[in-house]
């Protein structure tokens, strides 16, 4: 049994460990270890294509995580006060959004956006005074942000909902009893209490968006995010530079996930100490 478990972990983590190991390779071949060096990290960070892809990824991840946190929190708060079949239906829709494979979301979003743009763009061109200057919707950062927001919003809803249902209902009543109208109750009681969950949701959404390849690949148009860059350069052969990028992405993602977990857990502990 122990050997079996060891095999599973080896199988899971050896490739990742090798990527990290080879990112410090002094030689230029990904399969031959030739001494320690951090030169590939320097190369990666000085590569303008990598940096542009990284900037795209960061902007997309930050924007979509922010939007997802705001919209997701609003949805969670709204759903919390709804009862009965309406709630069941919306809950189901949210869980489905998490379960649907990324490739389906990618294709579906692509088709939806293309269809909408095809309808809207001629309209804008028709209304605009000078046809050649009329803004036209197309695939790019905006479409990646839209697709990622939709997907990661569901995560935020689930996390915030869990937090909301752990808050004692009497707290809201106590606030109302102490002359606070509903908005003040939300701002001064509900929001501070769910803030850790919102922040954890934000970090999770950020990580998912930052790491996502499949959805971005479909809706990115001519834009390149970091995962897309990695994918396209791998087709030209794996270099230690790719290993270095991969390792950096992995470390950033892990740190964000751990921070999210710590936030959720420490705020739970405070509550239970009460």
């Amino acid at each position, binding site marked *: 049994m122990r050997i079996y478990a060891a095999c599973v972990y080896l199988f899971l983590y050896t490739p990742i460990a090798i990527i990290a190991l080879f990112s410090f390779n002094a030689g230029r071949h990904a399969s031959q270890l030739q001494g320690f060096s951090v030169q590939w990290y320097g190369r990666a960070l000085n590569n303008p294509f990598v940096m542009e892809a990284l900037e795209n990824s960061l902007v997309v991840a930050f924007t979509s995580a922010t939007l997802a946190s705001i919209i997701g929190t609003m949805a969670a708060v709204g759903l919390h006060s709804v009862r009965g079949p309406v709630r069941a239906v919306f809950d189901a829709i949210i869980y489905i959004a998490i379960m649907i494979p990324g490739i389906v979301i990618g294709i579906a979003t692509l088709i939806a956006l293309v269809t909408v743009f095809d309808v809207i763009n001629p309209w804008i061109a028709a209304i605009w005074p000078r046809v050649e200057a009329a803004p036209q919707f197309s695939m790019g950062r905006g479409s990646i942000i839209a697709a990622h927001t939709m997907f990661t919003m569901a995560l935020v809803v689930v996390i915030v909902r869990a937090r909301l249902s752990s808050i004692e209902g009497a707290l809201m009543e*106590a606030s109302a009893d*102490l002359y606070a109208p509903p908005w003040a109750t939300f701002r001064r009681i509900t929001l501070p209490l769910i803030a850790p969950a919102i922040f954890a949701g934000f970090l999770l959404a950020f990580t998912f968006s930052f790491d996502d390849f499949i959805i971005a690949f479909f809706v990115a148009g001519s834009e390149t995010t970091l995962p897309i860059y990695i994918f396209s350069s791998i087709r030209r052969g794996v270099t230690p530079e790719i290993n270095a990028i991969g390792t950096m992405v992995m470390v950033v993602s892990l740190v964000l996930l751990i921070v999210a977990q710590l936030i959720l857990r420490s705020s739970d502990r405070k*509550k239970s*100490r*009460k």
Partner: protein
Amino acid sequence: MAYDAPMEAATPVAELRSVSKSFGSVMAARDLNLAIGQGEFLSFLGPSGCGKTTALRMLAGFETPTEGEVRIAGDVVNDQPSFQRPVNMVFQSYALFPHLTVAQNIAYGLQQKRPRPGRADIKARVAEALETVRLEGFQDRRIWEMSGGQQQRVALARAIVNRPRLLLLDEPLAALDRKLRKEMQIELQDLQRSLGITFVLVTHDQEEALSLSDRICVMRNGEIVQIGSPQELYDRPATRYVADFVGTSNFFEGRIASKDGARARLGLEGGQVLSGSCGPGLNVGDRACMSLRPERILLRSEAGDAGHPVTVQNRIFLGEHTEYLVTSETLGQVIVFAPRQTEQEGLGYNKGDTAWITWRDDAARILLSEQ
């Protein structure tokens, strides 16, 4: 302590007029009528599910009555949300805000009040409230750093700092241990008297209701069974339910044999006839019962006049009094409390002894038997 009724002349602080509340097909409260006077300490007493909490929540504004009117200071407030009512509540779970300090919790109501008092004023009133509940120096503590009893005081301070017209307390002492509960009961009473705020307490603990209240409103199945001072409820219960719920009592079932004004005679099944005082609403032939408080029964070694022969079944020494379980051929089992004074020389009665029980005429109360 007990004045029998609130000052009737003035406008009541709060009033329920034919108030009913149903949740779906369940009637939680049915035709409640009640006026709460200024400065009164009123308790809703009853077992869980009797509608007492629903009544309180309708006063607080958390529930809207299905029928009838809730009035506060003369105004109908049925449609007024809780945040507009001059009423504050101490919750059973305290419901203190975990992310705020003690002082921030107490200041919350003042900060939300419109017009909002000045900052210095809020600070002074918070300090005063902390002093009232004897928590000076705790203002910067976090809620989870406080013990149950301290949290209870914070909850109290958070409510009284707003000087509400009506302070609602939902089983506020239920979570405290017995000794602390006793202390808090005394403090609550002192507080109520010194502040002059009207208190409305919900409790299932009859002892608590008896010791704290000016008036008690006994509820059952969503209806008010009787409203009266503790002594009234104890000495002149309206129904067997009240007699049973408030204190301990012996009940002898039978039918009304005759009635003369405020006195009636009850025919037991064995043919014995007992007499006692009675309230209105009883008619000859009704099924009724006689309630006899155990501490008002005398246990004697001689028959005397009108003594009922009994056999002692059990004797339990309880410190300030001794509880006897005796059986009589005509009355069945009877519980008797004998105070220390009548037990001189440590003799008392032992299991198997024969004795006689008697009681004064005014100790017996004849009540309608219910359902």
